[in-house]
């Protein structure tokens, strides 16, 4: 069971605050339950899957698109963005309450839906449930945030370690290169010294052979 709670302000009395709780199973398009409360009284009503289809058909709107609009209006709390309006009119005996929601366009508003809500006999239970639900959600979010915070610290620490290892690897590569070249130079120069010596000996041997007849 999914549930959301938002604050709304009816167009007829923008100073007044109502709390709108919407509950549904899996997908809002299969129907939903509305619980409306002013903190003292509470009213409830249901919108069925068939009613949703009927509303969409009446508006000549694609059903999926209509459900998206319902989500934005009733669940995502976009009232504050000025995109949706709510109207609440309580009957004389206040056993019923008419609740409607509309979408604001540039110069026009069009009704998204409306329903009659029945007064709840024990509103205090509704209020407790609203606050309780909030506290439960707060608790879960708090725990999730703490978990994410720890994860982030761990990831940062891991990243830091790997960065250090990378720096070491880069340095080790540079040192290896320098070290190998130094060794190669030493070994090669040893061989070159040997070659110079052999060339000198060869030259001497050749000169000695050339001089031999004259010496004898």
């Amino acid at each position: 069971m999914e549930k959301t709670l938002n604050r709304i302000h009816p167009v007829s009395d923008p100073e007044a605050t109502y709390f709108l709780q919407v509950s549904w199973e899996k997908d809002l398009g299969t129907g939903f339950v509305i619980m409306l409360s002013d903190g003292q009284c509470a009213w409830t009503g249901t919108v069925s899957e068939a009613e949703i289809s009927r509303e969409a058909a009446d508006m000549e709107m694609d059903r999926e698109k209509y459900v998206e609009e319902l989500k934005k209006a009733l669940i995502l709390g976009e009232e504050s963005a000025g995109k949706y309006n709510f109207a609440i009119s309580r009957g004389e005996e206040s056993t019923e309450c008419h609740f409607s929601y509309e979408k604001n366009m540039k110069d026009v508003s069009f009704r998204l839906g409306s329903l009659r809500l029945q007064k709840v006999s024990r509103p205090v239970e509704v209020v407790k449930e609203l606050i309780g639900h909030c506290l439960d959600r707060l608790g879960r979010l708090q725990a999730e945030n703490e978990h994410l915070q720890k994860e982030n610290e761990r990831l940062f620490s891991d990243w830091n370690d790997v960065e250090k290892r990378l720096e070491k690897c880069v340095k080790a590569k540079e040192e290896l290169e320098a070290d190998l070249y130094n060794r190669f130079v030493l070994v090669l120069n040893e061989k070159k010294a040997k070659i110079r010596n052999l060339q000198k000996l060869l030259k001497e041997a050749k000169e000695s052979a050339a001089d031999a007849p004259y010496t004898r």
Partner: protein
Amino acid sequence: CPDTKEHFAREYDSYGDSYTADTDVAQLKEVFSRMKDNS
């Protein structure tokens, strides 16, 4: 020409490193880099 070719063949190996003149790190790096070009 053949004389120049013979002279360089006496003085330098097939990778361009001198047989007799001592090398250093910079020169050896250059020899190695040429080897990469010749692969």
